[in-house]
């Protein structure tokens, strides 16, 4: 049911919720989109568009089992899909420009950086569906049920994909580690 203009209080609450989520979730959405489309600059622009699109659709938004944060990720997901469709010549996700978090201590800094680079590279080798699930869960902070609503899948299906994705990631990391120590 669409919200009529006779509910200004409800509209104001939604606007405030959206503004609040911008402050807490903007970075997560940028990281999520960056992982999906493989380019930081475009991710920042698309993340901004996610919130603008949310304003356009705000009157129609109803929290029916889909919290606003998950709704934002659904918008981000659709936007990433549209972007990739328009730029279908991009066969692989590039990790260039996806800044790696620096090591927090001098000891083992080099080893940690190598591990982090390996993790980022391994993510790029997952299937798009696996990368999507992990992006929503690990970067986006959505529960498996919420991620399911974004992807149009059940919570159980998301948990299964998540497990499979992490198994693949683990194998890729082990293979990379063995190669580094040869």
């Amino acid at each position, binding site marked *: 049911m669409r919200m009529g203009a006779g509910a200004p209080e409800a509209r104001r609450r939604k606007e405030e919720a959206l503004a609040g989520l911008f402050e807490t979730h903007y970075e997560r959405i940028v990281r999520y989109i960056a992982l999906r489309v493989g380019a930081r600059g475009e991710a920042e622009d698309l993340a901004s568009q996610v919130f603008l699109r949310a304003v356009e659709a705000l009157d129609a938004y109803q929290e029916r089992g889909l919290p606003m944060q998950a709704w934002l990720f659904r918008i981000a997901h659709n936007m990433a899909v549209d972007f990739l469709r328009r730029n279908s010549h991009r066969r692989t996700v590039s990790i260039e420009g996806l800044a790696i978090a620096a090591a927090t201590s001098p000891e083992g800094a080099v080893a940690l950086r190598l591990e982090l680079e390996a993790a980022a590279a391994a993510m790029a080798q997952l299937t798009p569906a696996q990368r999507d699930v992990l992006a929503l*869960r690990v970067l986006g902070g959505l529960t498996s049920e919420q991620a399911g609503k974004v992807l149009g899948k059940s919570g159980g299906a998301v948990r299964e994909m998540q497990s499979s994705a992490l198994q693949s990631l683990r194998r890729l990391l082990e293979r990379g580690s063995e190669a580094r120590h040869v």
Partner: protein
Amino acid sequence: MSDARHLNRILDDCLDRVLFRGESVESCLARHPQQAAELEPLLRAAVLTRQALASQPQPEWKAQARLRLGQALEQHRRLAGRRGWARGLWRSPRWAAAAAAALVVALLAGAGSGTVAASASSVPNEPLYGVKRKAEAVRLFFSLGEDSKATVYADLADRRLVEMASMTEAGRPREVELLGQDL
């Protein structure tokens, strides 16, 4: 429940605890000793991935995005306010009749369709700008239903924003101010 599904649920719960509730991997493994050997490499892979991709977006990008969001929310509020105002007037038969008469007079006193078309690109303080605004008023008057009017209002707001950008580039702050009052 199958072993695989059971493990998936435990892994899911541990991911929530470790990634978002500050619990350590060791604490989660201690909670599930029978599955610890399988869980540990998966949890560590998730933690490493999040660390690897936990870069902060550029602050200036976020500032720009915040500004755009603020402008969009402000426009959203204004449009909602105008819908409420217009709806109130719409219910007044006297106002509706007066508005219809005024618009007809404006059309008759104005210009033909060719002039209206020519006015489309005009900006404030140009001769045809008044024609452009009258044409918009007619369009709004004849749009039926809330959704249709909301669409027209949104389109008109977009036009004002484009005009404001044009006036800003041309260094005409007075026109920018006038247009801002119309938003």
